[in-house]
C-alpha cells in the first residue's frame, strides 16, 4: 500500500497507523490485497462472483471486522458481493466503506452489495463511510446496497456517512425483521457541486415487537440534488420511526418521499420529514458569540452532521 492508499483508508475507517484491530480484508482496485482472520471470524473468497463471505462464530463478543475498499484506478467499475453470517448471540462491530481517489477523466465506480444474516440474539454495529477525492474530471460513483435479515432478538445498528467527493450515489438499504428485533439506521450525507444522491430505504416489520428507527440528516449545497425515499411496512404489532431532516443551501434540491404501510392494527409507524435552510436565529446566536456568518454556518452544519 502506498501513501494515497493509507490516506484513503484513514478517511473511511478508524485505522490505527497502518493496520486494523481484529479481522480484516482490504480490497484495492477490484482485488483483495490484505486479509487477516481470527479464531472467531473467518473470511472466505467467493467462488461464483467477486466478493467475500464473512463468518462470525456464535457467542463471539466485541470483535472487529474491517472490510474497506479503495479505488485509485480511473475507469474502474468494481462490483463486489459481501455476505456476513453472524452466529447466535455474537456481538461484533463491522466497519466497511469505500474511498475513491480519481485524478483522471474516466469514471470510477464501486457498487458494494452487502448482505447481513443475523442469527437469534446477535448484535451488530455496522459503520459505513463513503468518500471521494482527486482532481480529475472523471466521476466518483458509489452505489452501495445493504440487505439486513434479522432473526428473533437480533439487533443491527447501521451508521452510514458520505460527506465529501462522491458525484453520484444510489444507496439502497433493505431490512426484513422477525420477532423482537431492532434495526437502527443513521445516515449522514452532504452534497455539493452537481452531485446527486438518492437513498432508498425499505423495511418490512414481520415479527411481533420488531422495530426500526431511521434518522437521515443531510446537507445539500450548490447545485446538488438529493432524494430520500423510505418505505416501512408493518405487518404485525411493531414500531417504525423514520426521520428525514435536510438543510438546503444555494440552488440545491431535496426531495423526501415517505411511505408507511400498516397492514395490522397494532403497527405503529411514524414518518417525519423536514427540509429548510439554516435557521436565521441559529446564525444570529453564534454571531453574538463572535463567529462570522461563514464560521457560524460551518459550526451549525458540523453539529448537524455529527
Amino acid at each position: 500500500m502506498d501513501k494515497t492508499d493509507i490516506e484513503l483508508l484513514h478517511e473511511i475507517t478508524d485505522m490505527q497507523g497502518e493496520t486494523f484491530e481484529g479481522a480484516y480484508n482490504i480490497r484495492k482496485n477490484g482485488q483483495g490485497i490484505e486479509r487477516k482472520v481470527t479464531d472467531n471470524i473467518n473470511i472466505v473468497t467467493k467462488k461464483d462472483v467477486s466478493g467475500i463471505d464473512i463468518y462470525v462464530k456464535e457467542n463471539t463478543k466485541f470483535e472487529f471486522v474491517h472490510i474497506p475498499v479503495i479505488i485509485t484506478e480511473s475507469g474502474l467499475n468494481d462490483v463486489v458481493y459481501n455476505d456476513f453470517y453472524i452466529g447466535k448471540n455474537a456481538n461484533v462491530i463491522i466497519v466497511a466503506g469505500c474511498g475513491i481517489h480519481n485524478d483522471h477523466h474516466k469514471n470510477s465506480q464501486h457498487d458494494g452489495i452487502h448482505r447481513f444474516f443475523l442469527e437469534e440474539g446477535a448484535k451488530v454495529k455496522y459503520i459505513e463511510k463513503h468518500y471521494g477525492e482527486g482532481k480529475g474530471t472523471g466521476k466518483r460513483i458509489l452505489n452501495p446496497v445493504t440487505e439486513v435479515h434479522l432473526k428473533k432478538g437480533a439487533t443491527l445498528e447501521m451508521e452510514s456517512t458520505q460527506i465529501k467527493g462522491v458525484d453520484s450515489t444510489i444507496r439502497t438499504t433493505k431490512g426484513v425483521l422477525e420477532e423482537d428485533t431492532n434495526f437502527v439506521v443513521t445516515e449522514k450525507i452532504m452534497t455539493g457541486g452537481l452531485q446527486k444522491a438518492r437513498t432508498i430505504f425499505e423495511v418490512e416489520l414481520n415479527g411481533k415487537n420488531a422495530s426500526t428507527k431511521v434518522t437521515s440528516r443531510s446537507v445539500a449545497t450548490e447545485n446538488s440534488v438529493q432524494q430520500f425515499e423510505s418505505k416501512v411496512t408493518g405487518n404485525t404489532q411493531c414500531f417504525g420511526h423514520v426521520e428525514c431532516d435536510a438543510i438546503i443551501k444555494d440552488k440545491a434540491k431535496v426531495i423526501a418521499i415517505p411511505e408507511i404501510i400498516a397492514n395490522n392494527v397494532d403497527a405503529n409507524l411514524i414518518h417525519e420529514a423536514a427540509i429548510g435552510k439554516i435557521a436565521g436565529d441559529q446564525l444570529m446566536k453564534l454571531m453574538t458569540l463572535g463567529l462570522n456568518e461563514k464560521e457560524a454556518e460551518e459550526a451549525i452544519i458540523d453539529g448537524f452532521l455529527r
Partner: protein
Amino acid sequence: MLELKDICFTRENRKILDHVSLNIDTDKFVVITGPNGSGKSTLVKIIMGIEKPDEGKVLLEGKDITNLSIDERAKLGIGFAFQQPVKFKGITVYDLLKLSSGKEMNKKEACDILSKVGLCAREYVDREVNASLSGGELKRIEIATVAVRNSKFTIFDEPEAGIDLWSFQSLIKIFEDMRKIVKGTTLIISHQERILNIADEIILMKEGKIQAKGSKEELLGQVFGQSMCSKLGGDQENG
C-alpha cells in the same frame, strides 16, 4: 462605556424608538423596564447589531460601532442573552460553551460554568441544545454561554420570559449573584421587582422614549407606585 445618540427606529409607520439617547457607565448593573411595546427589546437589539437604527449612533468606549456587524461587536466585548434561547440540532452544551468562550476549554471548565448557573453539570454537558431541554434549562444554558465570554458589556433580554414561575424562582438567585458571574457592565430587560431591587440604575421606557433614569431608590416608587405597575410583570411579549 456605552452611549446611544439620538436613536430612531420606525417600522410599519410606528415609531418604536423615538430619539433615544442614553449613557451607561462602566461596571454598572442596569435594568430597563417599562410596558410591553415601549421599545426595550429593540433598543438592546440595536446595541448588539441585530437591528440597525434608522438614525442615530451607538458608541462603545467612545468608538462608533453603529455600522459594525453582530460578530464584530461581540469581538469588541458585547454579549447578548436571547429572550428565546436558540435551539440547535447536533450541537451539544459543551460545543456551545466552547464556541462561546472562543478558546480551548476542557470539560471541567465547562462543568464549572454550568454549576454556576445551577445545572448539574455532568448531566448536561454532553446533551444537545435542542427541544428535549426545558425552557428553564435552556435559559440557564443561555446564561452560561454569555457568562463564559467575560464580556465588557452584557445584555439580557427579558430573562424571565417564557419560563414558569417555579423555574424563575430558582433562576432569580442566579441574577442576584450576577455580579459574581458576569464581569463588567450588565444591562437587563426585566419586569421583576427582585431584579429591579438589585439594580444600580433603572431605566424606565414608555412609547419609544426614556421616561426616567435613576437609582432604584429614585425610581422604584415610580415604577411600582404608578398605574404602570399593573402593566408590568404579567405579559411576556417583546417590549
